[in-house]
């Protein structure tokens, strides 16, 4: 196990820079999730960490050692690929034991290592099968097994669950987290799925267009997103954004679209009349008599909760309730955001106003 330091790392393909100076400290044993939309550079960063891509500038160190010019095989890392990259002509056991075999380990030693990893992942009955004969989830586990056998300093995961169906994805999510709790190996995990990030990470790094938007624990990111991008990216359904102005007229409030009045606990200093974006998560709406009037558009019951799409000041917002409201399209309701849990972002640069 090792810590990993990513310092001001940049990456260009030709003249096109895809990473614009990324710095991420990763502690020993930490589970870090790099999350962001497609093309944000998260996979490229992971591949640079693995040594599969050159580093244009900046440094990456694993433990105390700067690995910029270290060959992938000498970095002591293991990677789980999105398509698993299992060797199709080798059995599960051979796939898992391949790295040990290359290292020149004795057959008995390889067998022990494979057996141990297979037990951890419940792969023992499958050891003689070929990858083609396995289901998606089993292949996924073999890919993880191949990583575990090596007992590396760092585990890298590149969107490992994106080829699985929804149910299996949830199960494997738990399995990976459990595995990390058991092995405590430093892990860097790339995904575009914020739910995976929220559920698994010790630390989430939200990336967007080649920069780090915010870094922090899942709940930190959820409670105090640093900017509008993070606020919109973390949480499902996504946060509602309403444009308008901060007003301090005796008490502070927010004047939303079409003059709709929304509550604020307090206004940031010198923000009277300032154009801003009002952010409120769907789960932070309540129905109250002093709420703002909204018109129901669609109601989507999921059983455990009810998602309500409504027009608030002409803008569509979504609200989530634990109760089973039986609204009809066109009904008028009074939605009230919890003033303690709303977010204000600068309209000009999207930064959080505190």
């Amino acid at each position, binding site marked *: 196990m090792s810590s990993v330091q990513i310092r001001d790392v940049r990456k260009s393909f030709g003249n096109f820079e895809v990473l614009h100076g990324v710095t991420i400290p990763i502690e020993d044993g930490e589970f870090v999730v790099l999350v962001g939309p497609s093309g944000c550079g998260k996979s490229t960063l992971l591949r640079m960490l*693995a*040594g*599969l891509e050159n580093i244009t500038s900046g440094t990456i160190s694993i433990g105390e050692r700067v690995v910029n010019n270290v060959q*992938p*095989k000498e970095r002591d*890392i*293991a*990677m789980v*690929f999105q*398509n698993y*990259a299992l*060797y*199709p*002509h*080798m059995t599960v056991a051979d796939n898992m034991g*391949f*790295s040990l075999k*290359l*290292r020149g380990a004795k057959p008995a030693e390889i067998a022990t290592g494979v057996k141990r990893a297979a037990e951890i992942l419940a792969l023992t009955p499958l050891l003689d099968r*070929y*990858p*083609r*004969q*396995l289901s998606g989830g089993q292949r996924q586990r073999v890919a993880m097994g*191949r990583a575990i056998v*090596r007992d590396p300093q760092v585990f890298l995961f590149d969107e490992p669950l994106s080829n699985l169906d929804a149910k299996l994805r949830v199960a494997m999510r738990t399995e990976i987290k459990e595995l990390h709790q058991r092995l405590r190996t430093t892990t860097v995990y790339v995904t575009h799925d914020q739910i995976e990030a929220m559920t698994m990470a010790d630390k989430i790094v939200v990336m967007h267009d080649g920069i780090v938007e915010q870094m922090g624990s899942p709940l930190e990111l959820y409670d105090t997103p640093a900017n509008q991008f993070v606020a919109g990216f973390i949480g499902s359904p996504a946060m509602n954004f309403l444009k308008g102005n901060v007003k301090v007229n005796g008490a502070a409030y927010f004047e939303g679209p079409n003059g709709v009045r929304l509550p604020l606990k307090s206004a940031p200093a010198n923000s009277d009349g300032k154009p801003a974006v009002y952010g409120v998560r769907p789960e932070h709406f309540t129905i109250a008599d002093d709420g703002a009037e909204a018109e129901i558009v669609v109601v989507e019951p999921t059983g455990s909760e009810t998602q309500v799409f409504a027009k608030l000041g002409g803008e569509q917002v979504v609200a989530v309730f634990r109760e089973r409201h039986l609204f009809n399209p066109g009904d008028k309701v009074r939605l009230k955001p919890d003033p303690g849990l709303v977010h204000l972002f600068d309209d000009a640069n999207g930064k959080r106003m505190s």
Partner: protein
Amino acid sequence: MAVLAEPVAAQVKRSSMWSRAFESRNFLGAMFMVPAIAILVLFLAYPLALGFWLGMTDTKIGGVGRFIGFQNFVSLSRDSVFWLSVFNTIFYTVTASIVKFAIGLYLALLLNERLPFKSMIRAIVLLPFVVPTVLSAIAFWWIYDSQFSIISWVLIKAGLLTRYIEFLGDPWNARWSVVVANIWRGVPFVAITLLAGLQTISPSLYEAANLDGATNWQRFRHITLPMLSPIIAVVMTFSVLMTFTDFQLIYTITRGGPINATHLMATLSFQRAITGGNLGEGAAISNAMIPFLVAAILLSFFGLQRSRWQQGGRD
């Protein structure tokens, strides 16, 4: 009314028979297969059967032969020229195929790397395959000429030799010379086919092997070679069959000479049957190739059987 109704009924009956036939799966299936079967029978089965038959007769050009059983084969078995041609054919096939495989694989691996002017180099590699065989054979004939050979000329000018090499005058020189010509001609096919095979191997396998600690040689040995083995089996079967039955190169460059030293079974068969007029004997020589070819096909058939890792399961 009754008079009118009858032909109408008959018409309905006839058309329904046709339409029923065309709606029947079996009939339609048979109809669709007719063109393919006709082509196969006309151009493959019939000539093959005729060849078999001729080999059992003493047919000469211009005469009707009679059935003489295995007499042609019996006389061939005592014919030293025939056995020399068998040896030549095996020597030619084995050496040329091995070298073609080695060079082809090397070129394929090279072309699979990132290279400047890659597509141009690929086109150049294909060139020997594009040139008509007889043309390239004539070029080689000049290269090997006893008086005008460019190789001899260059070596003499460089001071490495004092007299011209007898490329086609000496039996072993001639054998190696035609082998080289065949290799030059056959490498592109092997290289391009293997390159196509290499490109189907997922790059992430190499990345995984890289992270697993594989050296270049280990990546080749444990990833490339096993993943490429089905394609290698196909391409080498083709290569062996084409080399074994080669005719054009030999016939253009040496005509089997000197003193039958480069006669292959195919050229000998042609010489005895067409030039010599003994159609029966020539056919018998051709037929004698069949056991070798069947052996090669069987070998590749078992080699080509999908290995266990390629079978079963779903994707």
